[in-house]
């Protein structure tokens, strides 16, 4: 946490330029993710690129636009740690999906 930006009596105070730079980056990253589809990149490369651009965009929005980068760590952790539970849920459902697909192929002739 930097203390370069000091909290005034009320609210967040940052130069407009910061928002314009982030806005620009969001445009660039969105264009990149669109180009992934436009050029038909396939396979592991496609998923890596999509996820990378997605995480970068989400990070910029949450950190700068939503000002989370300047909040106290207690709030940051209270918001970000529970998201870990979502990832656990994702893992559980990936396992479950694999099993469902297996039974469908085995007993329902793939229908």
């Amino acid at each position, binding site marked *: 946490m930097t203390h370069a930006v000091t909290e005034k009596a009320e609210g967040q105070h940052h130069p407009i330029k910061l928002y314009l730079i982030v806005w620009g980056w969001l445009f660039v990253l969105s264009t990149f993710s669109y180009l992934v*589809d436009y050029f038909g990149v396939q396979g592991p490369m496609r998923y890596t690129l999509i996820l990378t651009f997605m995480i970068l965009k989400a990070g910029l929005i949450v950190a700068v636009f939503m000002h989370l980068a300047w909040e106290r760590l*207690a709030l940051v952790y209270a*918001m970000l740690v529970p998201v870990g539970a979502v990832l656990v849920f*994702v893992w559980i459902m990936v396992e479950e999906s694999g099993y469902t697909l297996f039974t469908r192929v085995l007993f329902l002739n793939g229908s």
Partner: protein
Amino acid sequence: MADIPLTHIQTETMPAGLKGIAADLSSDQQAFKNVSWGKAMIWIFLLSDTFVFSCFLIAYMTARMSTSVPWPNPSEVFALEIGGVTLPLLLIAIMTFVLISSSGTMAMAVNYAYRRDRRTTAILMLVTALLGAAFVGMQAFEWTKLIHEGVRPWENPWGAAQFGSAFFMITGFHGTHVTFGVIFLLIVARKVWRGDFDREAKGFFTSRKGRYEAVEIMGLYWHFVDLVWVFIFAFFYLW
């Protein structure tokens, strides 16, 4: 519950890092130090909304991973033909840019609100609302197009039946969020325009003093809607 002024909290002298977390959470009265109750509450609401959208996306992932029928190719399904040239995902890309732009104008509105520049704040919020409405309009166009092509929650012409239900559920819920966002943007913009936050006029519902923080809280919701779209764009349209 009184509105506790945050001016007396000196964050510079408070411990940072993990010690700061322990100190904040074990401290008296307030766990989240330099945020008001309103901001703490919108964050907690957004976290719960994160779980809602996560559940939708996980349900979609489960349906897509467990079906043995091929999933329709979103790149082709959402392609647009313009002047004989087929462009994949064109409308979705434009929608993405529109929503990101609305997030940009919203962030600037919050900034001007804290400078107490009423006019610029209200105009930027109206631009945000307009872009949001444009997004919903394009969403409606997309729905119409797909419904005409025979997409239903229980079937579609291209592959796995779950495609339709996942599409309508996820984009429908997101579109609803955008729609409500537009309505609240107009309400808050009107208050800014009238100078309610300069006069500290009491809200008709909460009867609390109006503060420019309302614009930032509105902004947090709006950015969240944009954030959800980032994930929908990646997982539903690009995957």
